[in-house]
Structure formats: structure tokens, C-alpha cells
């Protein structure tokens, strides 16, 4: 299992693609620093930066890039076959990839959110954001890992989820918020460190339960799908 994680991690970092992960966190911290240095009231910029950029963009987009990259690229170019023709239980393979994906996403998203949280309010707030971000990273990664196995264009579907489902519909149709990981993250962070900056609109129990369902259910379904992975040759 660790070999799979090693190959996955090297595949992720060995390419220029990893540089794409940098601009978003840098921007987040940069904006927070600017606002803080001008002594702007956090209530004015906190929501825009922490939620609008951090939780709505940095966390999901990072999880998307990483989550689809760990499995989707191997399925796409066919190198997955080298991992599948080994007597490894499919559970181990998925867990190894999930670990790498969630780990990287969590670090890339939680660290700048932590810093931004400190700049916006205090350490407690920063910690709340970081913890919620980690939970969100796990849920998003499981979801995008599953999408990589369900469809040949996981990035596109992931974008539909982030932009259309969470972004557009979540704004206007309150029912869709129950299935929006972004909302769970906001609610959990709000519960740990309540402020006016986090517009939590979902019940806390629902948030926790649904996050667990996304994470665990997604993983189980992905393990199942990997077990039935079919390759029909060049005509597939």
C-alpha cells in the first residue's frame, strides 16, 4: 500500500502540474495580509476572503485538481493497469490514493486558511477553519476519487458540482445545500468558532453526518468500482 502511495505522490509532484496548486493559497494569504496591514475591519473583508475565496474556491478547486489527478490521470493514460495487476486488495489501493489526495489537499487548503483565520480574528478561528478544511478535504477527495472511476471526464463533472451545484444553485435553491460539502465545512467551522463571518445554513448534525457519508460512502463505492474495473482494449 505504501508503494502505491509513493508512486501516486511522485506522480503528483513530479510534474509541472503541482505548480498550479500554489497561486490559490498564496493569493489567500496575500489578501488577508493586505487587509490586516491596512487595519480594515475583519467583518468587512473576512467573509469575502475566508468564505468567498478560501472555502468556496481554494478548498474545492485544490481538492478537484488533486483528487482527480491521483486516479483520473492513471485511468486516462492506462498506467493504472500496472497497479491493478498486483495481488493488492482494492481497498488498499483506494485508501492509499485517498490518503495522498486528502493529505495534499488538506495541507494546501488548511494552512493558508489557518493563517487567514488568525489574521481575520484569532488563533481559535484559524484552528476552526483548518479543522473544517481538513474534513472538507477528505469529503471532497473521496467524492472526486469516486468520480474518476465513474466517468471519463471527472474534472468537468467536478466543476459542474462546484460551480453549478454549490455555487449557483446553492445560492438560490436552499434544498441543494444539504448536498453541498462547502456548506458542511462552513457549518462545522462556525460551530467551533462562531463568528458573523461564516453564514452557516445547514444543521450541524446534518453537516457531520453528510460529510461522513460523502467520505465513507464515496470510498466504499470507489473500492467496489475499482474491483470491477474493466478495460476492453483500444476500442474502449
Amino acid at each position, binding site marked *: 500500500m505504501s508503494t502505491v502511495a509513493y508512486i501516486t505522490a511522485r506522480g503528483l509532484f513530479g510534474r509541472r*502540474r503541482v505548480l*498550479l496548486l500554489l*497561486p*490559490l493559497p498564496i*493569493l489567500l494569504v496575500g*489578501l488577508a495580509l*493586505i*487587509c490586516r496591514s*491596512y*487595519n*480594515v*475591519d475583519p467583518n*468587512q*473583508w473576512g467573509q*469575502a*476572503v475566508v468564505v*468567498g*475565496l478560501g472555502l*468556496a*474556491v481554494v478548498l474545492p*478547486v485544490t481538492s*478537484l*485538481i488533486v483528487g*482527480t489527478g491521483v486516479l*483520473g490521470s492513471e485511468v486516462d493514460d492506462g498506467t493504472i493497469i500496472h497497479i491493478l495487476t498486483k495481488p493488492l486488495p482494492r481497498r488498499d489501493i483506494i485508501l492509499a490514493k485517498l490518503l495522498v489526495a486528502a493529505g495534499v489537499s488538506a495541507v494546501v487548503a488548511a494552512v493558508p486558511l489557518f493563517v487567514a483565520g488568525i489574521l481575520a480574528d484569532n488563533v481559535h478561528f484559524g484552528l476552526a477553519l483548518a479543522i473544517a478544511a481538513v474534513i472538507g478535504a477528505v469529503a471532497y477527495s473521496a467524492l472526486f476519487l469516486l468520480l474518476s472511476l465513474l466517468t471519463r*471526464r*471527472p*474534472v*468537468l463533472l467536478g*466543476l*459542474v458540482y*462546484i*460551480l*453549478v451545484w454549490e*455555487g*449557483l444553485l446553492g445560492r438560490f435553491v436552499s434544498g441543494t445545500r444539504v448536498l453541498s460539502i462547502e456548506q458542511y465545512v462552513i457549518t462545522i467551522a462556525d460551530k467551533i468558532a462562531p463568528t458573523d463571518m461564516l453564514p452557516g445554513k445547514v444543521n450541524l448534525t446534518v453537516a457531520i453526518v453528510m460529510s461522513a457519508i460523502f467520505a465513507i460512502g464515496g470510498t466504499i463505492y470507489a473500492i467496489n468500482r475499482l474491483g470491477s474495473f474493466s478495460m476492453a482494449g483500444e476500442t474502449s
Partner: protein
Amino acid sequence: MSEAGVIHDIGYQRYQGPRLGRGAVLGALYTHGLRAAFGLGRSAKSKIFPWGVAGIVLLIAVINAGVRSQTGTWLFDYYQLDNTMSWLVIFFVAIVAPELVSRDIRSGVLPLYFSRPLRAADYVIAKVAALVTAVWLLLGVPQFVMFLTGAFTTKTGMKGVWHELGLLIPGWGYSLLWALIFTSISLLIASLTGKRAFAAGGIVAVFLMTAPVVGVLSVLPSDTAHHLAGLASPIALINGVEIWLRNRTDLGLDIGDLGPIYGIEAFCLIAACLLLLLARYRKVASL
């Protein structure tokens, strides 16, 4: 026991007749691009996303028109239609720009293209024109639907229709501005990679990244920062230009009297992106 080898002329002849020029190549590339944008001539799967987005925008315009015909006022006018649909336009452009440009890079057909009488400039112009047309149609057709409702339900006859037309034309111009800005940025990003998924993600990320920057800049204590906040994001930039050109102050963004700067930046942004695109394909063309 060998005979001298002979190759017989069975009719393969080189074409000696008149050939269409560069203009025809450009036109062909343009039509192909426009058709590919909407998935025409390809499988059903490639039609889902573009037509889906177009359908949603059209639906909203129809609802808007319905409201107008019932109550006599718009839910949102021609300009507001574009502004509300911003996320859908981002999505549309994030899908279509990679289809137009990244696919050519991935499949390695660029050397084939450029070994024809096609210059890098022609290629860029054709692709840009195709995407601009696609986005403009995406926004312009719903605006036209709104116009038709307005024209048919007007109570002042021909004068009303002319009045409505006078509102439609600037609305179309606004849509054209949207098309130009979104096209230049997204095509530039898409031309950097052969993988459509990355291009789409990159385009979305760029547009989403810049929105909170506007929010931050607008709460900074400096007045100049307020007025210039809109420059940071393409959507806010377009809004700024709208406010400047329509000379109104009630449309959300506060730009003071720095309006011309917005206009200049819009122009420079489009020009810079196009020149960078040109430079990118010049490099490929010389391979």
C-alpha cells in the same frame, strides 16, 4: 529473370486548377470552430454542456420575457441579464475554449495545420472569432428573445419598437464586450495545455480567484482602492466599463470618475491576451 520495373500512370494527377486563398482557410477554420463550440458535427455527449448552458440562459430570458408581458416591467434588463449569467458564461467558456484549442494541441495536428497556407495570425483570428461569436450568441439570442417580447407587447406601436431596439443594440454591444474579454482570457489559458480538463480547471480558477480580490479591495480604507477595485476581476472590469459608458452611479460598483481607466484596461487586457496568443502560436508555427 528480371524485367525493368515500370510504374504505370493510373490517373493520379496533381491538382493544377485554381485554389482558394488564405481567406477561405480562415473561413473554414472559423465555421469549424463555431460548430465545434456547440458540438455540431460531433457526438451527442459534446452537445450536452454547451446546449445545456444555452438552454438555461434562454429559459431565464423567457421567464424574464414572461414577467415583462404580464407586468410591463423587466425582471432584469439587457445589461443585468449578462451580469446575472456570469457564472454560466464562465462555465461555457471553460468548456468550449479547451474544445477549440486544447484538442488541437493534444492530437498533434498543429504541424499539419501550419504546413498549409495558414499563418499563425489566421489561426488565432479564426479561433478567437469563433469563440467570440459563440459567447455573443449565447448572450445575444436571449436578449433578442427579450426584445421580441418587448416589441410585441409595446403599447406605443412603431415608436415603442424603435425604442426597444435602441435598448437592444447597446445590450448587444455589452454582450460583445463580455464575449471579447472572456474569449481572450480563456483562449490564452486553454492554449497553454493539451489536456482539456486542466484548461477548464485553470479557466475557472482564474475567474473565481479574482472575484474576492475585488471584494477585498473595495473595503480597503483608501478611496482609490475602492474605485479601482473592479480592475482586479474580469467580470467587475466589464461592470466598470458599463458604468462608465452608461454614466450611471447606481449599478453596484463605485468607480468614481476613474471610468476611462476601466475602458483602457479592458482594451489593454484584450489586446495583451490576443498578442500573447499570437506569440504562442508563432512559436508552434515555426516548428
